[in-house]
């Protein structure tokens, strides 16, 4: 039995390779270890289609490791099942880019458009979605500011009509008004297109506003449930090891 949260989701119909119809993702008994250090242990949860899962936890709890296991970038034990036909969009936390790389934002997005077999016009549309000016995208990516580069990564993730988006602290480095706007954009897209959204965030007020479910790492066992149940002062203190306050949107 997986170490699920206090309110485990209903058992889905068993499928060989694709999860139950209403689930975008099923994770069962997922464990990841680097050498002898266990980072994730026997984690099980499900993400409903069109819902938003927020992953929270202190630094070093394995949030990014979880995402990298979900996209198949690192070896793991257990089962990760994406619904058939899933197209992933991923925004990593940060990338180590050489400053003088002769690649422009346009080169980068054109590459994704070609890989996703979508017309080049979609590049302009995704730039508009993340409010990045075309003349900024024409610059070498090493010359972009942190916030501009983050928007470029978002535009990259949105190209090719993904069905599921994984955001690892999507708004790190983005200024506060920009952060609000990005979340609103993401939320609007989610409603328009029925996207499944998974995000790692330290912004608990945003988590409480947008998340359908919250998965907390950094505590044994990990907990899973709606924000009302997880974002309680007592549980947050267990997760983060210190009392935590956040502004709750109503």
């Amino acid at each position, binding site marked *: 039995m997986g170490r699920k949260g206090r309110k485990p989701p209903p058992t889905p119909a068993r499928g060989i390779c694709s999860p139950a119809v209403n689930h975008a993702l099923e994770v069962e008994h997922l464990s990841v270890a680097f050498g002898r250090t266990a980072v994730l242990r026997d984690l099980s949860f499900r993400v409903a289609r069109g819902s938003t899962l927020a992953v929270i936890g202190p630094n070093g709890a394995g949030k990014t490791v979880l995402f990298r296991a979900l996209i198949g970038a690192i070896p793991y034990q257990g089962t990760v099942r994406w619904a058939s036909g899933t197209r992933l969009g991923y925004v990593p936390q940060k990338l180590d880019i050489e400053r*003088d790389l*002769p690649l*422009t934002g346009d080169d980068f997005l054109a*590459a994704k458009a070609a890989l996703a077999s979508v017309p080049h016009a979609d590049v302009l549309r995704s730039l508009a979605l993340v409010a990045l000016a075309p003349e900024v995208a024409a610059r070498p990516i090493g010359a972009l500011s942190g916030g501009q580069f983050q928007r470029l990564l978002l535009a990259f993730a949105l190209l090719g009509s993904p069905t599921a988006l*994984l955001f690892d602290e999507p708004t790190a480095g983005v200024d506060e008004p920009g952060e609000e706007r990005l979340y609103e954009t993401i939320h609007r897209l989610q409603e328009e297109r029925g996207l499944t959204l998974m995000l790692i965030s330290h912004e608990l007020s945003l988590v409480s506003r947008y998340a359908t479910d919250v998965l907390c790492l950094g505590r044994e066992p990990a907990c899973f449930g709606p924000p009302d149940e997880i974002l309680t002062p007592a549980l947050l203190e267990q997760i983060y090891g210190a009392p935590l306050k956040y502004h709750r949107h109503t």
Partner: protein
Amino acid sequence: MTSIPALALSVSTAAAAGLVGCFAVMRRMTLASDAISHVALPGIGIAIAFRIHPLLGGLAALLVGTLLVWALEERTRMATETVIGVVFSTALAIGALLASGEDLIDALLGAPRALGPWEVALGIGAALAVAAFVLSQRHRLVVALVSTDLARTSGVDVRRLSLMFLVAFAVTVALGLRYLGVLLMGSLIIIPAATAKHLARDLHAMLAVAVSLAVGATVVGELIADRLHRPTGPLIIVVAAAAFFASLLVRRP
């Protein structure tokens, strides 16, 4: 006087070297690529000993070296560079023991000689295949060099792409062994691309500048070599290096 077929082969090899070099430089493979080209030497030595075509021996050794680098890329970057430094320098030493005298100098610095029609045809075919690979896979290569995780989520088989790129690299080195030798071929791949990286702002400009410089250096080097009766390979690299140093005077746009 350089024959037209030989020049056609050198030019197509240079174009392939310029294209492969762009991604080698952007993938920070500059040092590794020099070391990889050294691994051709023991293959050439063994081929000479067994009276096989030396370039076939060189190519075989390069492909083995490539598989080794590919397997090592799974480990950390640090370990890869260390092992490349040790293994490929050892390959150079073993090669130097296997080949001797003039054979060794020819293998190290290249020795243009009369080519059979099948050698020219096969060489040009291989150079075109490398160029076609880089141009058709440039989108995958771009995304993978920015982030292998993003490449994976965009449907790119990163391990396979990496292997294909290293094979293209090995074939390009093998193509240049005839006239540049083990020591200098890595330079024709790296120097024009490094110059292009300094001058260009976007990918297509970089590819175009690198190919033009590699082809230009090859043609100019061959012409000067004919006039001065000096070996071709070193002159090609001197011309390419002169362009690199000149480019440093140009401010990046």
